[in-house]
């Protein structure tokens, strides 16, 4: 997006371009500062000594830097936070694989294969895009209860292998439609099976959208609070989000900087993904314009 300047709207030549630009930059910098201030304040708070957190501490620079809060927080519950991070990582990774796999299979069928009823299934898939999950929540819970899956990770992972989140199918359908049909039609003429076309042509050509889907899927599963809240009760199976919540209850208002420290840690994976894959995330939103 370095060509932003080139895309400036002609006909908008202000009288004092430099002054105007300076004003715009000041406003945007002020907004940026206000936006980031809370996050930086949390980071600063997590690095302060326990008795230094509140009461006139608006500055972003701690008077004294200590990682005491991180040590306190890490062992704040009976089980160390390391365990919760591993749990979250496993769940988010398995869920992400499921989402990408199942959604790409369905999107391939919808865009490249002909079969009776395709239009109807596609319409039904689009219909589920806006369906609030609350409406399937209770029977799903009953189903997983009957299967003996409550208080395991299975309800958080297995549905993703059945492409339950139609958003990812939609995302991939949009991308697959942009891949020239001549490629796979030629392959079909040569006698390639649909499976080979899917694995050898479509998937390799779709790496950007697969990556975008994987990133969103990972972040959303990592941040998911509601699913673990209703399905997981065993502390040893907690995700990071659930552990944070339980940490609020156990530490009350006494140990806020330890809570801040663990909160900061919980955001680090998302922040890293953001740093490295920002372009994919922003393009993903701009092109499909869905969700967060």
């Amino acid at each position, binding site marked *: *997006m*370095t060509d*932003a300047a*080139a*895309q400036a*709207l002609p*006909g*908008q030549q202000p009288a004092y371009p430099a002054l105007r630009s300076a004003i715009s930059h000041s406003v*945007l910098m002020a907004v940026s500062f206000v*936006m980031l201030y809370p*996050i930086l*304040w*949390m980071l600063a708070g997590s690095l302060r000594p326990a008795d230094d957190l*509140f009461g006139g501490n*608006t500055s972003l620079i701690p008077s004294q830097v200590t990682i005491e809060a991180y040590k306190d927080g890490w062992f704040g519950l009976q089980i160390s936070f390391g365990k919760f991070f591993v749990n979250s990582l496993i769940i988010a990774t398995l869920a992400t694989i499921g989402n990408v796999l*199942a959604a790409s*299979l*369905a999107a*391939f*069928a919808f865009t490249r*294969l*002909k*079969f009776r009823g395709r239009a109807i*299934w596609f319409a039904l*898939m689009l219909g589920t895009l*806006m369906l*609030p*999950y*609350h*409406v399937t929540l*209770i*029977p799903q819970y*009953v189903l997983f209860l009957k299967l003996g899956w409550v208080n395991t990770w299975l309800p958080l992972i297995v*549905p993703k292998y*059945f*492409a*339950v989140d139609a958003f990812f199918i939609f995302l991939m359908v949009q991308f697959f439609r942009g891949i020239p049909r001549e490629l796979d*039609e030629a392959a*079909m003429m040569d*006698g*390639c099976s*649909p499976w080979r076309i899917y694995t050898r042509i479509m998937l390799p050509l779709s790496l950007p959208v697969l990556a975008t889907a994987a990133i969103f899927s990972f972040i959303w599963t*990592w941040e998911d609070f*509601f699913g673990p809240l*209703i399905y997981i009760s065993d502390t040893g199976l907690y995700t990071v*989000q659930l552990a944070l*919540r339980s940490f609020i*209850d156990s530490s009350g*208002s006494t140990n*806020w900087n330890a809570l801040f420290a*663990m*909160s900061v840690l*919980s*955001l680090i994976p998302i922040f890293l993904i953001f740093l490295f894959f920002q372009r994919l*995330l922003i393009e993903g*939103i701009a*092109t499909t*314009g869905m*969700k*967060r």
Partner: protein
Amino acid sequence: MTMETATNGWEEGRRPPSRFAEGLRRNLPGYLFLSPWLIGFFCLTLGPALGSLYLSFTDYDLLSAPRFAGVSNYVHMATADPNFGAAMKVTFLYVALSVPLKLAFALAVAMMLNRGMRGLPVYRAIFYLPSLLGASVAIAVLWRQLFAADGLVNDLLWVFGIEGPSWISNPNYSLYTLVILSVWQFGSPMIIFLAGLRQIPADMYEAASIDGASKRRQFVKITLPLLTPVIFFNLVIQTIDAFKAFTPAFIVSGGSGGPINSTLFYTLYLYQEAFGYFRMGYASALAWVLVAIIAGFTALSFLSTKYWVHYDD
């Protein structure tokens, strides 16, 4: 693809196949690829949706079989449940405040950035970050502390000699802290607005300024009308999301929706009924009312498009 039989890739049969075999040959690959989704659709979406519709007409506590109760859940909701009324009021207020504010902010910042600002990628990244982090428990924890009696906001106010209340535990203010949290996450609609603004042909503005149209007039006559499809899209998506908001209210209120139901989001109330009191029938009815509200809103939005949304063709 017009030549179905020749291009679907299955080997040509040696003898003329029966109609059944022919149908299978043609349709099988598609259905095989679709099968994970189909199973999910029937077992995890359609089936459960119909199941919860049925449960909404029963009393069900998970332990004994559901007992048919007619429309009593819906009647109770409409006539005898003050918490339902509170949840509706809180949720509608939240949607009505947070969505327009968020979109207005997103559009304003997108317009500024679209003027060909140097450093656009940096600003865009900074503004987008809260949208990405916002759904997590950590940010809800942070919000709870920002607006606490001894939190950052009051510390800042104190500098100006103002003694602020405990925003979170005051029912007059608690909901507004969550509205601010939502507006703080204006980044993702902003990115969609930016993409929309890029689509507006520059020569339109050129022509307008040659004709002597002022900036304000250009905004009203060119930018806004051409952006209406994007505004519409953002409005629908953000409204649905706002109706479904859960985590911030849960964390900020400690799961209670308090103080005095002031943050009792609809989904939080549904959660309490289902997993706090195990009134699964009633919670199912709540879920279907939510679907009706969202569907009604979406339908109204689509119907309204012909009065204000401008499509090119």
